């Protein structure tokens, strides 16, 4: 990771909150990370840990009815997206930042042909005419390796399988050659072989286009196959950031460690699949201090008192963890 070059995306102290039951609760709290050009950062965590909300915040799609970005900055190519007008955001969305969703079965409009839907983005953002957009769309359909792309161009989404639909979604998202792609669990709904195909396609297109990618998933196996760097989220906070190899070799935050230990392995007795006792605290009842403390085997007195900060883990500035025990907080902890 080239630390010298300016990152394409820098999220700084992001807080996104939702109103519910009379109060406003932060679904994402003090989240900071960067993504370099041509880099894939995976955000890993359980359901409800705030990884999708982080993505929606970057896209400016936090539902305005009950949610808002409370604090922080999202700098994309040097420009702060927080507070940017809706018209400006519209020009960026789909053109410079794109997103792929989890459900390929429902993310395409059933009454429009796939060709139309791919070409539409180009016509909208690039002002291409029908013919040029159509040619470019066909080209994209071939790039995402839809067999017999020319024949399938005028087909409707229901005529495609889940994996093929996800390829179409990728073609739509990549139509304008975005600088940043947000992939929100793009393979979760697919079966394992299709998942592998879609992942390798994404990796291939990412390096071909030289774009940055944020890959959101709860699947550590998927992370291992696609990410350069990993951010682990728990209860709305990033608890550990590390290069892929470091994270798998030296998980530092107890949550990361337990998470890695709960992956079933072929070389271990399947009857003893380890789990993390307890459950994720509710958004409206976050514990004081470290949010993982109630479930943490390494818990000490201070954990329940004060929230630790994301601090460098000894020996590696690229590796940070939010833990009183494992990541020395001394120089950072302010009383």
């Amino acid at each position, binding site marked *: 990771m080239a630390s010298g070059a300016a990152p394409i995306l820098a999220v700084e102290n992001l807080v996104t909150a939702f109103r519910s039951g009379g109060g406003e609760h932060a679904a994402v709290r003090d989240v900071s990370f960067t993504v370099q050009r041509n880099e894939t950062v995976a955000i890993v965590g359980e359901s409800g840990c705030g990884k999708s909300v982080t993505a929606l915040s970057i*896209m400016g799609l936090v539902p305005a009815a009950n949610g808002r970005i409370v604090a922080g900055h999202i700098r994309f190519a040097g420009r702060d997206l927080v507070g940017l007008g809706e018209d400006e955001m519209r020009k960026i969305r789909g053109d410079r930042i794109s997103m792929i969703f989890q459900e390929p079965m429902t993310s395409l*409009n059933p009454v429009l042909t796939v060709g139309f839907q791919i070409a539409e983005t180009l016509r909208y953002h690039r002002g291409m005419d029908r013919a040029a957009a159509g*040619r470019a769309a066909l080209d994209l359909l071939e790039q995402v390796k839809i067999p017999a792309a020319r024949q399938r161009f*005028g087909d409707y989404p229901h005529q495609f399988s889940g994996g093929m639909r996800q390829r179409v979604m990728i073609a739509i*998202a990549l139509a304008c050659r975005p600088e940043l792609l947000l992939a929100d669990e793009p393979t979760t709904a697919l079966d394992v072989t299709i998942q592998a195909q879609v992942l390798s396609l994404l990796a291939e297109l990412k390096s071909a286009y030289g774009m940055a990618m944020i890959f959101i998933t709860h699947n550590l196996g998927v992370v291992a196959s696609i990410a350069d760097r990993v951010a682990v989220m728990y209860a709305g906070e990033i608890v550990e950031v590390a290069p892929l190899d470091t994270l798998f070799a030296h998980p530092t935050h107890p949550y990361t460690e337990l998470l890695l230990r709960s992956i079933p392995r072929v070389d271990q007795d399947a009857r003893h699949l380890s789990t993390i006792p307890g459950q994720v605290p509710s958004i409206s009842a976050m514990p004081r201090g470290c949010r993982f403390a109630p479930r943490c085997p390494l818990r000490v007195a201070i954990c329940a008192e004060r929230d630790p900060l994301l601090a460098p883990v000894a020996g590696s500035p690229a590796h940070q963890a939010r833990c009183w025990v494992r990541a020395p907080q001394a120089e950072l902890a302010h009383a």
Partner: protein
Amino acid sequence: MSAITLGRGEGHLLAQVVRAFSANATSWIGLALFLAIVALALLAPVISPYDPLDQDVLTRLAPPSADHWLGTDSYGRDILSRLLWGARLSLVISTVSILAAMLIGGVIGIVSGYVGGRFDLVVMQAMDVLLSFPSLIMGLMVVAMLGASMVNLMIAIALTAIAPFARIARAPTIVVKERDYIEACRALGFSDLRIMAVHILPNIIAEIIVMGSLWLATAIRIEASLSFIGLGVRPPTATWGGMIREGFENILDSAWLSVFPSLAILLVVFSLNMIGDGLRDAIDPKLRSGE
């Protein structure tokens, strides 16, 4: 390199609807009947045996005969000719007013459902107010305010039909706007206008069209009712409702004066309802056969 089509999808959806529609015998009967009536109306200048306004005092109130198939009215005008010419007027008035109501009501419904919140509440309550007037009362008010003319008649009918179209467009819009593909549209930076026109409208248009076919029948009834109470097109122009009213004065001894235009209305309404039922079955995805 062969041409690449960017078909919006109507073709395919339409093909499915046509298939489901044609599998239904009653919808075919309705369509055939309606097209026959439209053809007769269009051909009125050619096929009607007499001028619809030509009076002949010597053959007043003549019963159906070889000369006058459906008889003559109290001015000796040929009933068949008046029916054929009246059909033109009835169909034009109802079609234009329902198309206007579809357009205005559809836009109101989609925008209201899409925007939601307080705006939706206010708009829909305004529609409820509109809906609370029976169509005849609404017609009476409009015609009383603006005067009896063909255009005002169309305005009156359109006004009564706007609220139902707004409701029928709003309900599916609320469902569709929550779908993942609409969220995906937002993620692609599409404007609200584009999302409504290109992505929501094709998903809900079928329901609006079905409603249109059913309301066309209602419009014909309203037109006839307003003409019957003298608030429609001015005599001596032939309209079905007007003919029924004129015949009403002689209903006891010359029943055919009212019976034939009534039958004509019955036939049109019946055929349109059969078409509407067939269409509704055709667009219902639960009934649509395997794709």
